[in-house]
């Protein structure tokens, strides 16, 4: 599907295939980021569509970051943190859970396909799970296709 | 006038006729209208629940459905085993949707699960109230020393029954005190009487019921008060045999609490069917309460 994409020498203008979905993943540095590192350490293969933004705790991930990602054209967003009860800050992920329980309802109501937003608990020991989560998330986001929320309309953003 | 569905169960129509008679009389006096459930079936006690779990739940559910169809919100079951089965069935069906479906398949329709199952003691203590009972008492019990024996099924398991204390129940004792009797503290209120081993392993009943009679006597009892037909029959029917085995006279009348209540409310022994007991209570009651 990305057949005609190549990285040309000195060609700094990249034009990735528009069908390839790009997903931002907000990972807490204690559990999920370490889990993703472990997936690497154990050479678990997964699709390259997910780019990780490292955060202190999943609670740092403001739900509005998720909206900003979608607003700016990313095709999907994943937020991941420690399992409940295992938060490095003891309670952070409980707040994350509440925030997103509400925010995902708002997204759906406003008309955003639920396929675009995902959450997971991945511990530092769950390299396998991380790879699995990425596979599933990429598949689901692909089913929703590229983000075209604002692309059909002319935008006058300065 | 309070109206409740009445589930007598097999015992109250046979071996425990006097429980049935006395309960009905007492209810009339206290302003409780009993409406017997038409076409009631077995409650699903021992014979059923050692055979099939589904049967043991479906049978009582059938009775609950029949009672619900009468349009009443409470069903009262005097036999402790019936009471226990109805309660358990109601709870299990409410908690287990799979079971509920199975029961529904067997019975053709579901139980709404809204009807409340009560024991007569609950009705008298919670709905009528001991204060009213006390006011209506015509014949005080004159310090009659009573050991209240609750047996196993009336208060257990507490998570289902949710009535009285499972280790040291008090409801009958409170009733006795309200009627002017002396409620004796003793430790065997909920010990096993041998239950349905009465016919198959009589020795066990001799042993266990013997212990209960012995403790009651040691505690100073003149009679034992019960709320279950099987307890009554084991303690009453087997008392002679126990006396022989232990070489000790007990001579403890085993009375239903409804009978004692009936006496206190002014009824006669004859009315209440007290002649049906094996250990004759008339001597004691004549002497203590001057009843006939």
């Amino acid at each position, binding site marked *: 599907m*990305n057949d005609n*994409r*190549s*990285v040309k*020498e000195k060609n*700094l203008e*990249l034009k*990735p295939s*528009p069908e390839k979905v*790009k997903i*931002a993943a907000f990972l807490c540095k204690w559990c999920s*980021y*370490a889990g*993703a*590192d*472990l*997936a*690497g*350490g154990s*050479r678990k*293969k*997964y699709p*390259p569509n997910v*780019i*990780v*933004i*490292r*955060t*202190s*705790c999943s*609670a*740092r*991930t*403001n*739900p509005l970051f998720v909206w*900003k*990602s979608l607003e*700016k*054209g*990313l095709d999907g967003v994943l937020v991941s943190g420690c399992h409940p009860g295992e938060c*490095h*800050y*003891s*309670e*952070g992920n409980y*707040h994350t859970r509440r*925030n997103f329980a509400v925010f995902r309802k708002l997204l759906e109501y406003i008309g955003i396909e639920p396929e675009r937003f995902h959450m997971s608990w991945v511990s530092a020991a769950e390299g396998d799970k991380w790879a699995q989560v990425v596979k599933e998330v990429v598949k689901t986001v692909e089913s929703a296709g590229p*983000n*075209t929320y*604002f*692309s059909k309309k002319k*935008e006058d953003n*300065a | 006038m309070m109206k409740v569905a009445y589930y007598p169960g097999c015992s109250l129509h046979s071996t425990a006729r006097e429980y049935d008679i006395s309960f009905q009389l007492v209810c009339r006096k206290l302003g409780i209208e009993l409406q017997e459930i038409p076409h009631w079936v077995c409650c699903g006690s021992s014979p059923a629940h050692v055979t099939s779990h589904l049967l043991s739940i479906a049978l009582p559910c059938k009775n609950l459905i029949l009672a619900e169809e009468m349009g009443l919100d409470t069903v009262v079951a005097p036999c402790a085993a019936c009471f226990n089965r109805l309660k358990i069935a109601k709870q299990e069906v409410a908690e287990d949707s799979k079971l509920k479906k199975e029961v529904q398949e067997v019975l053709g329709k579901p139980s709404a699960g809204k009807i409340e199952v009560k024991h007569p003691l609950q009705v008298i203590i919670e709905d009528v109230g001991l204060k009213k009972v006390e006011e209506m008492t015509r014949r005080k019990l004159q310090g009659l020393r009573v050991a209240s024996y609750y047996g196993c099924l009336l208060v257990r398991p507490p998570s289902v029954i949710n009535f009285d*204390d499972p*280790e*040291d129940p008090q409801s009958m004792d409170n009733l006795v005190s309200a009627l002017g009797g002396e409620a004796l503290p003793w*430790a065997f209120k909920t*010990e096993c009487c041998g239950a349905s081993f009465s016919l198959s392993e009589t020795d066990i009943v001799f042993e266990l019921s013997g212990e209960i009679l012995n*403790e009651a006597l*040691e505690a100073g009892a003149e009679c034992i008060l019960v709320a279950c037909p099987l307890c009554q029959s084991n303690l009453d029917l087997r008392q002679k045999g126990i006396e022989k085995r232990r070489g000790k006279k007990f001579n403890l009348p085993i009375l239903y609490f409804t009978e004692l209540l009936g006496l206190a409310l002014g009824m006669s022994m004859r009315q209440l069917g007290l002649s049906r007991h094996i250990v004759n209570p008339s001597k004691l009651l004549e002497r203590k309460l001057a009843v006939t």
Partner: protein
Amino acid sequence: MARIGVFVCHCGTNISATVDVKKVAEIAKGFPGVKFATDYRYMCSEPGQDLIQKMVKEHNLTRIVVAACSPSLHEKTFRTCTQNAGLNPYFFEMANIREQCSWVHDDREEATLKAIDIVKLATAKVGKNNPLQTTFIPVEKKVLIIGGGISGIQAAIDVAFNGFKAVIVEREPSIGGRMAMFDKTFPTLDCAACILTPKMVEVNQSDLIKLYTYSEVEEVSGYVGNFKVKIRRKARLVDENKCNGCGTCWQRCPVRLPSEFDMNLGKRKAIYVPFPQAVPNVPVIDQKHCLYINKKKCGICKKVCPFEAIDYEQEDEVIEEQFGAIIVATGFTMFDHSIYGEYGYGKYKNVTTGLHFERMLNSSGPTGGKIVRPSDGKEAKKVVFIQCVGSRDEARGMPYCSRLCCMYTAKQALLLKEHNPEAEAYVFYIDIRAAGKNYEEFVERVQDEYGATYLRGRVSKIFQRNGRLMVRGCDTLSGTQIEIDADLVVLATALIARPDAIKLAQMLHIPYDQNRLFTEAHPKLAPVETVTTGVFLTGACQSPKDIPDTVATASAASVKACGLLSHEKLPIDPQIARVDVEICSGCLACKEVCPFGAIEKEEIVDRVTQQKRWVAKVAPSLCNGCGACNTACRPGAIDLDGFTEEQIFGQIESLTADKGNER
């Protein structure tokens, strides 16, 4: 404008086998702000680090991105390297193109594209990094120890031995705690008082240890190095400075009351010391029962006191002190067995507990060391011990094993036999858990040498017959029912958390488990620390512990506390939250979500209106930098250094720059 240098690592072939590192560097040169980009075989090697420092000078770089492995491996390395190059260490970001790229993708083209994105993300972030300085806070060289049992006593002695000051706050009139109530200790059978009293005296005589008995911790604020603690010194009505403990007052006091220390088996007066070896040896007036306080009659104690130490007008006093560290040594309380109907709901006088039995064993106790039936004071010859009362009972008691009951029951059975060789001891148990030095041998001895009868099974009922207790249970080993007519039943009741444990936990911001026991920072690797830096745990407030374990944790906690105090100043991670008071509207949602109590309300004068208003304030030493407050803050008044809004927005934007529909 930041001048960014990008250094792409081959990591041997770990990265370069899948990612075209040269192309990554080449393309990175076109990212906004990037003034230099190159690749190198091993960035973490000395030549690699030298390269960074050299290029910083050569190209006048102000920000560094290293695209290599995970920051968990080398973030620190390169921060130091950045600092050595003359830049703020936080002007550095790592792009993880190994663990999260080259190792998890096979397609070279895909992996290279992703690596480019990752590097772009890092450059977008690094351009917005703030210079951060590690700050330091001074340390108050004094340790607060909450609880004056053996745990707190040992901790205080160890802190003092290390040359630091310690303050013990004890709720009761004397230190000593539960251990002071015991007769002898297993498995060596030393007399508890003989080994405890010298330690109590040592505490009392140490210049470095201050005792606040009959006192309670009321409020804790501040943070490691500078805890501010309010302590309520309850009115003793006796002046500690004047009293010399002569005892005239309590000998003459006419009011006789059950003694709590003797588990109500003995008596005390309305003015009393709980036990003869009390430290301090200063009595306290029981205000509930004192005749003078209640009826303005009597007043004998005041009349007879040779030192005029009695002061009926004395009032509670709340003092405030500062501490560098806090050791929690609040111990345990006993499970109330009166919920068990089968043991008689606590109605039978002769059904007692292990602590009652300890007091009876004690020769200076209420019975003078005689084992008697509390109902009639007659000697108890047949004693049934029941273990696991409230322990290992998920339905009605605690799910856990209380750990010491097996041992103290064995000890009590042994001492019963020593007191009266004719006596019979029966022990009902579920399992015998005697994992400790010489513990198993001890239990064996109690059975073999002393002839205690051990019955594996539960007791189903205790009832009274002819003034004796009938204990009915089963012996699962022989498969029989057993009925024992006992004089006395001793229940080994569970050790549980104190009823007000949660209150203290909230005061100290330390977590507790479903059993209200305080939770350590890590069950294996940080067993006496808590997640609140500077607060340590010892003894049974954390989980049931016997004396050796309690003493061990006390020493461990005090060493940890002294380790903190040995620093003049403590560094704090600069990647923490900060408030922009201009924007803050003072709703304090941040305070609600902060797991560390790091946010306080602060009154400021508004710059524009010149009126007073409330805003949020972050205590840097309490903030752990989770960022929950940032999300809760609607106007974006509170930000998190290291993960600022601008940094995260920059990262999001960098990913979407090529999505076509963005500007």
